[in-house]
């Protein structure tokens, strides 16, 4: 059953996490369901917190992908600087060609363009990657900070969920103890009534 359909859910009153156009809603929902399945009869508040936790995990995925994209961006920039591939129309064609070249889907022309640029710059692909890493270090550090922030957020949410779980168990235990005391008291009352001389 989808989370939104559960009775007394807090989620309809909160804005839902948005996905990027190329992301899978099914994958996002299955992550949420697997997290919820780890909780034993979660309360609506716990479900709301788990939903935020799932979003944080999703952000970690996005930012991890961004780290690789940052490297590619820097590689394209270095290639256009190093070789004779400076194009008055911009180096976006080179970026696209490099992207295809790295994921192995480059056309003949694109591969030739990249190889020519590497030769012009007297570089190998691994050299280029190392230099790009150095070049993009500032931005990669920023993405690392963003990932770290999501880890911290997850830790906070985890503590919140634990405290709700502990609270509900505590309430249950106190209810049981109270019921036990009441039953003991009532037994005592019955006994003391019985002891009264008629």
């Amino acid at each position, binding site marked *: 059953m989808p989370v939104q359909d559960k009775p*007394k859910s*807090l989620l309809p*009153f*909160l*804005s839902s*996490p*948005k996905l*990027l156009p190329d992301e899978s809603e099914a994958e996002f929902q299955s992550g949420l369901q697997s997290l919820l399945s780890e909780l034993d009869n979660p*309360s*609506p*508040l716990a479900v*709301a*917190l788990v939903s*935020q936790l799932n*979003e944080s995990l999703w952000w970690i995925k*996005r*930012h991890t992908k*961004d780290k690789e*994209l*940052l490297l590619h*961006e*820097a590689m*394209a*920039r270095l290639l256009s600087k190093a070789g004779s591939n*400076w*194009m*008055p*129309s*911009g*180096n*976006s064609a080179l*970026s696209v060609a490099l992207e295809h070249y790295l994921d192995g889907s480059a056309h003949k022309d694109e591969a030739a363009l990249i190889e020519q640029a590497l030769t012009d710059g007297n570089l190998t692909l691994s050299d280029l990657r190392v230099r790009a890493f150095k070049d*993009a270090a500032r*931005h990669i550090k*920023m*993405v690392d*900070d*963003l990932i770290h*922030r999501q880890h*911290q*957020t997850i830790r*906070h*949410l985890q*503590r*919140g969920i634990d*405290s*709700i779980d502990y*609270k*509900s168990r505590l*309430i249950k235990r106190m209810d049981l103890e109270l019921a036990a005391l009441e039953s003991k008291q009532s037994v005592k009352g019955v006994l003391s009534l019985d002891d009264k001389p008629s």
Partner: protein
Amino acid sequence: MTISHRRSLANRCNALKSTGPKSVSGKRASSQNSLKHGLNSVPGFESSSEYRALVELIAEEGFSAFACADIAAGLLNYRRVMDAYYDTYTSPEPVDEFLRDANVRASNPIFRELLSPSGSEPQDVREMAAFFASMQRQERRKGGPVSRRSADSHKLIRYQRNGIARLSRAVRQG
């Protein structure tokens, strides 16, 4: 239609002569230019129907009235931050490809031609070229779209930290 290099440079030179908005509506519009995400404004959750519904639902879990109010406000505030985070991430400052890739040195004759009707000296042309070169350096330092969205999102870290700390505290103390 692509604007020619010459036309684009002329537009930018003319834009430098602008002294800002003159009309009342123009000034009102430009006063909102620096408004990026609105997270510095004080949210008025208490009057919203979502807030009241959340408070009622949380109260059923055995939290005190104060805790319910804190948790509901914390949740709404955290969502507000995360929505702004998403918006910032998905709409970074666009890359000015013209400025990034322009060959400033090769544009000197165009600057000269553009400035000559006003009787400009070579010094003016040099200053104009230096100005464009500095703008280009700034543009290149910002990097591509991924670098920009990372840098923009990075600015919202403190709002996230405060938002989640407030929510977590409200839940644990409730």
